[in-house]
């Protein structure tokens, strides 16, 4: 069983966590007309990186979203931070 660290609750069992999305996507400005390709890219295209990844996860008991950096091959977790304190 893998342990992930919620930035708010500390180390917890992996079953308490839910993968939400890849980090770093910017929502297109929908107050303006956008073309279908741009919208489809935003909705569906994934980097789906092999190796080091940056992802948004949710810790289900506290319902907080946070940023996790991990390796998608070895499953090693490098760091977890609150989204508001995301390092630039």
């Amino acid at each position, binding site marked *: 069983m893998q342990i992930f660290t919620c930035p708010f609750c500390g180390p917890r069992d992996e079953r308490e966590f839910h993968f939400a999305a890849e980090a770093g996507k910017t929502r297109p400005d929908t107050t303006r007309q956008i073309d*279908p390709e741009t919208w489809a*890219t935003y909705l569906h295209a994934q980097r789906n*990186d092999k190796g080091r990844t940056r992802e948004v996860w949710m810790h289900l008991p506290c319902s907080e979203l946070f940023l996790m950096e991990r390796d998608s*091959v070895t*499953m090693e977790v490098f760091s977890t931070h609150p989204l508001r304190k995301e390092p630039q």
Partner: protein
Amino acid sequence: MTRYSAFTLFREGLRGHKGWSKAWRSPEPKPEYDAIVIGGGGHGLATAYYLAKNHKITNVAVLEKGWLGGGNTGRNTTVIRSNYFYPESAALYDFGVKLYEGLSRDLNYNIMFSQRGMIVTAHSEHDMEMAARQTNAMRLNGVDAELLDRDQVLKRIPLANTRPDCRHPIHGGVLQPRAGTGRHDAVAWGLARAADSRGVDIIQNCEVQGFITEAGRCVGVETSLGPIRAGVIGAATAGHSSVIAQMAGLQLPITSYALQAFVSEPLKPVMDTVWLAPPFGTYFSQSDKGGLVIGGGLDRVPSYGQRGNLPMQETVLAGLAEMVPALAKVKLLRHWAGIVDVTPDSSPIIGPSGLDGLYLNCGWGTGGFKSIPVGGSLLAHLMATGQHDPLSQPFDLTRFPTGRLIDEGAASGIAH
């Protein structure tokens, strides 16, 4: 190539099996080919085979970074079926089943396709209504389907849990009689042998590391064995399709996940069909060697690590123990995971990649094995003609901007 038959087997038996030739060559790559297929799994080998057979293009190389069939082709649960909901999917997957039905003869290689049927059980009155809808949809699409009541299911699966206090009692189910299982390694080896005999070069331990582009067109690949040029390139790389796409400067609507499977110690025959119980997400069949082959849902963590995690293992096996309490003490022999390429609508991507000269066959997710011949034949058609076959047109990447998704994940109620 030695033609396989009962006679040659008998003759070689008398000669001490010294007359067999290698099933395929291991040639050095040539500097240039008419066509290159990336990925020496089932889909890649089938693409090369159908390029040679259907389109008479034989100056073809299949480039495989590891060994033949060492990815998902060797990591699945060998189920072949076409119990889908939408007309586009039914046409696609049922053509796949039809190709499988003739494949042993076509390849002169016994792939052991055993049409033992597959049952998806229903566990409530509401499930029975959905089962009737699924049966009707399949029949309207020309796919064989039968709606079974409880007694008919229990007749086919006498092992099933009939305790009065069981958590999900069986009300009935949908049977696809033509579904079944095949021998996964034989599919890879049979396709490799048949492609090789038509002149295709199968090159193992040759990893594609980049694309060579000239004037915006893909004209070759950089590999661990040096550059190789080609008139047209097709990628059939399943869970690693996003890695290949990144080399071409593209992003795909794909997330890679690990999908686990299990095989038990060999048992005497106890199960002669494939059974999926949706409340548990668990399904199993019994191989000819006697092992129970057990599968379930995805690990819900994006992954390229070809091994599973414990929570999903517990879910799948707990499901099996509830489906058939008699199997609770059976020991597992092996357990593994493959990396599957999941799209937002659980339907494959077949078509131009966005880079001129590079075509894709990917996104089959958890259902790649059953679609090996159809995926290969459609990618071969695209590479040879530059045009879609009518079967593959709906699965083009353009379905994402137009919104014409084929959402089988939601529609067919089968673990994807």
